[in-house]
């Protein structure tokens, strides 16, 4: 099963689609979690995901705002999508009856 940081990367890459590359994924994770995402953690986790066959990476185009340096493009593979679905379902199942689950909170408000 995926770790939570692995899940964040796969989800961010899936949301960004064709524009998924390391810097954009980092931004997406920082915006979603409100925490700083270190380059070291991001790159080593992407390497691990690639080794597991859950993402595919390649060198993309260079742009002027990157100082003419190439991007590391990231694409989620079919196995990556399955692993993310598994993680999401497991989190959903385990949090079904906890007080902070959205539907549970809504039910308590109705009562």
């Amino acid at each position, binding site marked *: 099963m995926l770790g939570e940081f692995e899940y964040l990367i796969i989800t961010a890459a899936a949301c960004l689609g064709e524009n998924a590359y*390391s*810097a954009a994924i*980092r*931004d997406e994770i920082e915006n979603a979690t409100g925490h700083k995402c*270190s*380059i*070291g*953690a991001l*790159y*080593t986790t992407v390497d691990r995901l690639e080794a597991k066959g859950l993402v595919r990476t390649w*060198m993309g185009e*260079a*742009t*002027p*705002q*990157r*100082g*003419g*340096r*190439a*991007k*590391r493009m990231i694409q989620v593979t079919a196995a990556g999508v399955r692993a993310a679905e598994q993680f999401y379902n497991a989190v959903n199942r385990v949090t079904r009856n906890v007080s902070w689950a959205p539907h549970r909170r809504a039910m308590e408000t109705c009562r």
Partner: protein
Amino acid sequence: MKFPNGWWWVECIAGLLAPGDRETVLGDLAEAGESSGQSFLSVAGLVIRRQLLVWRSWRPWLAAFGLAMPASFLLMGFSVSVAQNYHAVIGATVAQATGFKVGPGFTMLLCDIGLLAAWSWTGGFAVGTISRRTTWMSAALSLLACTFCLARFRIDSLSRLCLLLFLPPAAAGLFLGLRIARIRLGAALAVAITITALTIPQWSKPGAWLPNWALSWPAWYLVAIASRHKAPLRSVMHGE
């Protein structure tokens, strides 16, 4: 795009990353517009994480602590022995002005020189092959051993530099080991058999078997990896 002055340090530490990583990491940092201090810490963090991952394998430990350091001590001892033999055989011949006579001492000297070169070369090659990403640590431990011995060398008739006779062939082997993953099976077998044959005259010396085998196993390791991968040789730019 022109980078500010502090980026020089960032570029320096990024030099420790693989070329592909370096390109994308520096690009990401430029795009994020992070300060040079933050960028330095980010890249240093990645370098440390990468190194820690590499050191989780047994290979860097074997290359650095099982081969580079102990072999450096043993080869320095053997270098001094070769230098002393050379001094005794060639020096005596020249002093007596009797011309160039080939005797048993001279043959032994040639064997020892060949053995020193072969042990050093195969040791260097094996270090480069076993763990190319941690060659810096293997080289540092070898240099540490050299510094230790150079500081304690006390033989008046010999120069301290004779300790380092093993370094040129070892460095040549290391560079070739880093450039190509392995040598051909035939060549590896020839080197290993030659080394083993050259150690035969040393078998009579008591206690010589331990350094002999400690220095000969890299040659048989090269045979093992050559026989495991009989595919054509390929150039290895980076990675294990």
